């Protein structure tokens, strides 16, 4: 049995925690007996679009801002990047004169290197100046410990901060330039490692794109049964899953475990959330956003969940049954892609809590209704699922926990105080789309900005 029902989840923060432009509760970590939350605004167009680190006091039930991105004056190059990031609307507006250095914090991990006085909280930031990795030794002060983009300032951010065998690993995510602005695909398809991040020294530990130019990004890192796993995005062939024992000198020996989107091809465009459970690696998949990759014309498609054992064999947990070089794969949960919901485009967050496996989805049904609903009320919203054994799944939260504009469950964190849930809420965007496309003047939802829930 899983630990919770939907009734056990309590809303402990909403409206972006007083910052409604923060649509995304992007990353979480349990540090110094507190929950730390990294937040992201969807764009970077002014001084209000600043990433923050929030801390939750579970005894008082209060939130405290521990870090707020400093405000910088952008030069012409950064202004051009801001305009590229903002799209059509930004081109009609005056160039910004002030910007938060980072507009989001997409990854967090607790790690202690030789140069750290104790366990430190590391965070990967999203920045028009090039992504940084920040470090805090006390949970209050956050300072960069890298150069922008590790020397390539067109790298937007770093994700997947993952401690493994005494080292810290990460991969670049997103591109920022005056012509390209992509939140996910990076100019470098690489895994980096540092054995002492405070020195600012990071080494590449794999061949670029794992030697396959069709790999366009490394989307996920996770550890399981003695390996570090890396999942790629590959719009032509579908994701690949690689692993290394990280032994010897970098770059390490890597072994390809899955290819061609686990034989679903490009409808498994990229890996999503990945985590170890009962000694196996669970690999989510998906296509970002609305399950459709516009640039490469892939999809729409719903996500899958795959279980990889230490010997490299694998099971399909939910998804599309298929014949493969590794045998017939029938979903063990008896559910198809997206757990039978075609709107579940990405297995977006996953964690183990009190012996059960949990995952949250990106669910884009509200966008479909906003654009094609002909005035009908919006429907849908993110889901949270749980399983005691990885095969038998129960839906704990449906339809965004009552907020139809909550389209994604972006982060999960197991803690001694319970299971924290961070969401993605797109109230303003959905309201705009509903008015534009379906004539719906009021979507009936006021709260903008992400929510945080606590299950206990």
């Amino acid at each position: 049995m899983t630990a919770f029902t939907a009734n056990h989840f309590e809303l402990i923060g909403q409206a972006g925690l007083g910052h409604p432009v923060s649509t995304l509760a992007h990353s979480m970590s349990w540090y110094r007996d507190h929950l730390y939350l990294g937040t992201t605004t969807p764009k970077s167009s002014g001084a209000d679009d600043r990433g923050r680190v929030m801390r939750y006091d579970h005894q008082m039930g209060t939130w405290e801002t521990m870090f707020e991105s400093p405000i910088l004056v952008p030069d012409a190059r950064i202004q051009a990047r801001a305009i590229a990031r903002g799209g059509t609307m930004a081109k009609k507006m005056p160039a910004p004169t002030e910007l938060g250095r980072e507009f989001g914090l997409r990854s967090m991990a607790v790690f202690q290197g030789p140069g750290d006085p104790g366990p430190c909280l590391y965070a990967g930031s999203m920045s028009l100046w090039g992504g940084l990795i920040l470090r805090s030794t006390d949970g209050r002060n956050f300072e960069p410990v890298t150069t922008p983009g590790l020397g390539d300032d067109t790298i937007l951010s770093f994700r997947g901060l993952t401690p493994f065998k005494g080292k810290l690993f990460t991969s670049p995510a997103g591109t920022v330039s005056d012509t390209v602005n992509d939140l996910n695909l990076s100019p470098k398809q690489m895994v980096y490692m540092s054995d002492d991040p405070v020195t600012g020294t990071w080494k590449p530990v794999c061949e670029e794109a794992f030697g396959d130019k069709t790999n366009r990004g490394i989307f996920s890192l996770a550890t399981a049964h003695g390996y570090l796993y890396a999942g790629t995005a590959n719009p032509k062939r579908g994701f690949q899953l690689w692993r290394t024992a990280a032994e010897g000198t970098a770059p390490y020996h890597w072994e390809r475990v899955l290819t061609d989107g686990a034989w679903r091809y490009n409808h498994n465009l990229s890996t999503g959330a990945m985590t170890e459970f009962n000694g196996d690696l669970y690999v989510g998949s998906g296509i970002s956003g609305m399950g459709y990759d516009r640039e490469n014309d892939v999809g729409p498609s719903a996500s899958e969940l795959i279980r990889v054992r230490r010997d490299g064999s694998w099971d399909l947990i939910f998804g599309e049954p298929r014949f493969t070089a590794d045998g017939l794969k029938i979903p063990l949960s008896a559910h198809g892609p997206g757990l039978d919901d075609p709107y579940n485009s990405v297995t977006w967050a996953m964690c183990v809590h009190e012996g059960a496996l949990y995952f949250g989805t990106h669910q884009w049904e509200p966008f479909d209704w906003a654009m094609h609903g002909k005035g009908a009320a919006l429907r849908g919203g993110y889901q949270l699922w749980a399983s005691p054994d990885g095969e038998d799944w129960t839906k704990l939260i449906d339809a965004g926990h009552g907020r139809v504009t909550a389209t994604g469950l972006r982060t999960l964190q197991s803690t001694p105080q319970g299971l924290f849930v961070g969401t993605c809420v797109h109230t303003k965007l959905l309201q705009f789309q509903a008015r534009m496309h379906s004539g719906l003047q009021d979507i009936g939802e006021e709260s903008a900005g992400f929510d945080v829930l606590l299950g206990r």
Partner: protein
Amino acid sequence: MQEPLFIIAPGRSYTSLIGGMIGQHPQIYGLPEVNLSHVDTLGEMLGTLSGPLEIFMAGLLRVLAQLHEGEQTEASVQRARQWIMQRSHWTTGQMFAHIQDQVGPLVLVEKSPLNTLKIEHLQRLLKLFPKASFLHLTRHPRTAGKSSLELRKSLREGRVEGHPSGRVREIDPEKIWLRSQTHIMEFSRDLAVGQYMRIKAEVLLRDPRTYLAQICEWLGISQDAASIDAMLHPETSPFACMGPPNARLGNDPNFLKNPKINFDRLARISEPPLEGEVDWRPGEKFSQPVLKLARQFGYG
């Protein structure tokens, strides 16, 4: 009544060879192309498959001759035709039921090209057999297109025995490929998980033992060595040869002339790139919808 297996694909997708292989499993009865999905009654079928289209009656005539009389001769085929004409009020469902009665507990496998011509044809099959299994075979659009062009050239030149020579309409094979694939994908969307499966024909043919065993596992039939061995001999089917003069075809003419598996040739089946000019539209590349589907199927 058993629920049949339908192999669905555009033409020139190795359906004859693979259908022939699957049809030789001891728990399966492999049908020739009976073309029953485009109409509701046998009377309608007699009406639509007349004149130059009469060749599409050959499969049903041959199977009835074989099942009723144990042989396919001019006389037995003629009697099969009369038998059909006397039952023009029969629904296609009754026709399938009759065939099933004749073959007993064996699972019918069928692969008529007309099945994917319109989505209504597929839906008609599903209405008749709500729990039928559907195996979607794909083939690279470039090799499928070339194969289609070659067959049309043979037809034009009167080199296909059993097919009336004469004018053969020029068509863009890529459009045919796309139309059928689109029908199949749209149709499959509403099927239950596991009712529809897709496989690249090239992958299956390069390693038939591996993938035939998986198909058997999916269908819930024996995967033992004897069953797989039997599937590697499609030539043993009574329909894997030219029929009598009044029902020569009922399947791909190339397969009927040479139904034995050439394993060396299969091992060399290649998947060319998707990029580059196509043979049927000089100077042009695959259309974007074709590229999109081909990549979804694992090509390129």
